[in-house]
C-alpha cells in the first residue's frame, strides 16, 4: 500500500527575509529584494541588480550555527539556515533527523567560492585559508556538508536539473516515502549568487537590468536571486505515529521534458502542460479543483509565453488565479521550486494569494492575466507550483490542505 505524503514543516531564507516570519511579512507588504549588489563582488553590481541577501558569510555562519572558516560555502550556509528552520518547524527529534533523507537541489554548488579562489586553487604550491574550498566545484559537496552538520545519515541525494532542481528533490523525496523507503525526507534546494551564474545568464541575454515583469507584455528578462528553502515530508505512518497535524498534503507531482531545445521552452508549452497534467492526474483532481498556480514566470519572453500557453491549454476557459512571485525574490534557480512551494504553503495557511508585482500590460498572445493585488480571505484548497529549467525540464507539484 503506498503511503500518502504530508508536509509537516518548512524553512526558508531569501532576499526578502531570513526566516518564515520575515518572508511572510514581506509578501504581505509587497517588499521586494531587488537592488544593487553589495555582498558579491562583481563588475555587474550596479548594471545588473539582483535579489541579494544582505548578509556576509560570517553573519550567515552565525545564523546557521556553524563556525566560520571551516569551508562552508554560501550555498551550504543558506541551505543550512533553511534546513534547520525546517527541522525545528516540524519538531523532528535527533533520531528522526538521523533516519531522514536529505534531498537538495543546486545549479552550481559552491562555484562562488571556487571562482573566487580559482587561481590559488590551481596552484598546488600555494597554501592558505582558501584551501578549505578545494572541493567546492563539486555540486554534491553542499549536500554532504548539510547532512553532516545536522546529522542526517540515512539517505542523501543532490539533484541538478537547472531551475527545476528543488521541485524535483521534493518529488523524489515523496517517491521514496510513497514506496516505503523513507518515513521522512527533507527536500528543497539552495542557491547563492555568483559571478559565474550572473555572467552565464547575462551571456544568454535573458537578464533584465530593471525589475522583472512576469507575464507583462514589456518583459525583458529575469532578475537573479539567491536563497534556500526546505520542506519536511513525512509518511502517513509517521504522522499518525507521532500524532502530528500536518500543514498540508503533497497530493501530486509531475515531471516531463519539453524535448525542444537546450535552453528554450517550446512555444506551445507542451512540457509545462504535461507536468501540470501529470500532477493533476496523480492527485485525481479535475482542473477546476485547482485554486491557484504559483507560476514559474521568470519574465523571460520565452518562458512566460510558453507557460501561459501550457496553462491555457490545460485549464481552457477556466484558468485559476495565478501569479509569479519572482519579482519578490528574483529567480533563485535551483531553490525556486522549494521557495515557491513554501509561498504556496504560506498562501494556504493564511488564505492568501500573492500578487504578481509589476504586471501592467497584457500579453496579446494570452487571453489570461495574473493576479495584480494581494487577495486575502481566499478559499484555497489545492494549489499548483511550477518550476521549469534548461534542458527542457518541466516540473509541477500539487499541494492541498491536509
Amino acid at each position: 500500500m503506498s503511503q500518502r505524503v504530508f508536509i509537516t514543516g518548512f524553512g526558508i531564507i531569501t532576499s526578502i527575509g531570513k526566516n518564515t516570519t520575515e518572508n511572510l511579512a514581506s509578501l504581505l507588504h509587497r517588499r521586494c529584494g531587488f537592488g544593487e549588489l553589495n555582498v558579491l563582488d562583481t563588475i555587474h553590481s550596479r548594471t545588473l541588480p539582483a535579489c541579494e541577501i544582505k548578509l556576509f558569510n560570517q553573519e550567515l555562519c552565525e545564523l546557521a550555527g556553524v563556525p566560520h572558516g571551516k569551508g562552508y560555502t554560501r550555498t551550504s550556509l543558506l541551505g543550512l539556515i533553511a534546513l534547520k528552520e525546517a527541522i525545528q518547524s516540524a519538531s523532528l527529534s535527533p533520531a528522526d533527523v538521523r533516519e531522514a533523507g536529505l534531498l537538495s537541489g543546486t545549479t552550481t554548488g559552491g562555484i562562488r567560492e571556487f571562482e573566487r579562489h580559482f587561481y590559488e586553487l590551481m596552484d598546488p604550491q600555494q597554501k592558505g585559508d582558501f584551501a578549505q574550498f578545494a572541493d567546492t566545484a563539486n555540486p554534491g559537496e553542499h549536500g554532504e556538508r548539510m547532512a553532516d552538520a545536522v546529522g542526517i545519515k540515512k539517505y542523501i541525494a543532490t539533484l541538478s536539473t537547472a531551475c527545476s532542481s528543488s521541485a524535483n528533490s521534493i518529488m523524489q523525496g515523496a517517491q521514496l516515502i510513497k514506496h516505503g523507503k523513507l518515513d521522512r525526507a527533507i527536500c528543497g534546494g539552495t542557491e547563492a549568487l555568483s559571478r559565474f551564474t550572473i555572467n552565464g545568464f547575462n551571456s544568454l541575454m535573458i537578464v533584465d537590468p530593471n525589475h522583472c515583469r512576469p507575464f507583462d507584455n514589456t518583459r525583458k528578462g529575469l532578475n537573479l536571486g539567491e536563497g534556500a528553502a526546505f520542506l519536511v515530508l513525512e509518511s502517513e505512518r509517521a504522522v499518525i505515529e507521532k500524532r502530528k497535524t500536518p500543514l498540508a498534503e503533497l497530493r501530486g507531482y509531475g515531471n516531463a521534458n519539453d524535448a525542444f531545445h537546450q535552453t528554450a521552452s517550446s512555444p506551445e508549452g507542451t512540457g509545462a502542460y504535461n507536468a501540470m497534467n501529470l500532477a493533476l492526474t496523480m492527485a485525481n483532481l479535475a482542473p477546476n479543483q485547482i485554486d491557484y498556480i504559483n507560476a514559474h514566470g521568470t519574465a523571460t519572453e520565452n518562458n512566460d509565453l510558453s507557460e501561459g500557453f501550457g496553462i491555457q491549454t490545460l485549464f481552457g476557459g477556466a484558468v485559476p488565479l495565478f501569479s509569479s512571485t519572482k519579482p519578490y525574490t528574483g529567480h533563485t534557480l535551483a531553490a525556486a521550486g522549494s521557495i515557491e512551494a513554501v509561498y504556496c504553503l504560506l498562501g494556504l495557511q493564511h488564505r492568501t494569494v500573492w500578487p504578481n508585482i509589476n504586471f501592467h500590460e497584457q500579453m496579446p498572445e494570452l487571453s489570461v492575466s495574473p493576479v495584480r493585488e494581494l487577495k486575502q480571505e481566499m478559499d484555497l484548497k489545492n494549489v499548483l507550483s511550477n518550476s521549469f529549467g534548461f534542458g527542457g525540464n518541466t516540473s509541477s507539484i500539487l499541494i492541498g490542505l491536509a
Partner: protein
Amino acid sequence: MTGKAQYFIQGIGMISPQKTFDNQMFLDEITTYDQNVLTAVVPDFKAYINPIQLRRLSRMLRIGLASATICLRDAGIEHPDGIITATGYGFLDETEKFLREMLEMKEKQLTPTHFMQGTYNALAGLEAVMIKCMGYNNTYVSKGFAFENALQDAMLHLEEHSAAHYLVGSYDEAAAVQFIASIRENHFKAEPIVNLNLFNTATKGTIQGEGAAFFDLTGTRSENTWCELRDVAMVYRPETKDALAASLSDFLKTNNTSLEEVDVWLNGITGDAVRDVLLKALEHSDLKSVPQARYKHLCGDYCTATSFALWLGASMLKKQSIPEVVKGPAFETPKEIKTVLSVSHYMNRNYTFMLMQRV
C-alpha cells in the same frame, strides 16, 4: 527493493578508458596508462551523432550521447519512457572554460556555449531532444551516490509501471581542474604509476578515471536481457568495518540471499592506502571466501565509477565469463555465474552495494 517488482538491464552503452563501447568484446584489449589519468577510448562518433550536431558538442557530451545511442541500439528500443543521469563533477572542462574566460575577460563579452554545455543536466536534456523523449527527466549530482540515486529513481518508477523503459546513465570526465584542486587532499597519487599496478601500491591516493555509461532498465524480461538488477543500496560514512558489514548483511537479507550464494564480488577499492582501509578490512573478513574481481585499475576512480561495476557484473552474467585481468587473486571461473555483488566506495564516504543476478 522490497516490492514485488523486478528490474532488468536490457541494453548497455559503455564508454570508458578501456575499449568497452563494442558490446561484442569483453576486455579483450587492455589499454595501459602511466600518468595517473585514464581517459576514454572512444568510438567513431559519426556512427552515433549527426555531423552537424557533432561539431557543436564538447568531448564529454559526444561521449555521453554516443553511449546513450549504443545503449538504445543494444536494447532494441527507440523511445524510452524517461532519462535519468548521474554525475559527480559534471562537465567540469566546460565549466572551467567559462570560468577562465570570465576571469580573464573580467566579466565582459562572454559567449554562452561553455556555460550551457557545462550544466549538469545538459546530457539528459540533449538526449531528450535527440530522441524526442518528453517523459520523465532527472539528474543526480551526489558525488559517490549519484549513480545509485539514479538507479533507485528508475526502480521506483518501474514499481509503478513495469513495462516502462528508463535510460539510466552516468558521466564523469577526468578534468584537469579536479585533478589539480584535489592534490591537496591526496585524492590522486603524487607519484606516477602504471594503472595495472594500482593494487600493488602502498601510497595515499588513487588514479583519475572517466566514463559515460547508459543502461536500459525495465521491469520485464526479454531476449535481450543482460541480467536482473536485484537491488541497490547506499551507506553514508560508516564508522567502522563492523558497521559496513552489518549494512551489507542487512542488504543481503532484505534480498533473501547470503554471501554463500554470491559467485563473485566486485571490489571497488581504489589503491588508496588510507581510504581503502574499511573496504579492505571487509575484504579480509566477511568477504574473504568469496572470489573477487577488481576494476578501478581499468577505469580509474571517479564519482560514478560504479557504473563500470554494473557493466562488468552484467557482462559476466550475460557472457558467463570473467576476464583474467579483473580477477583479484586468481580463481577458477565458476561453471555457472549466477550472482554478482558489487561493494564499492568513493573517498571513504559513499559506500554502495549492487546485487546482480543471471536470468
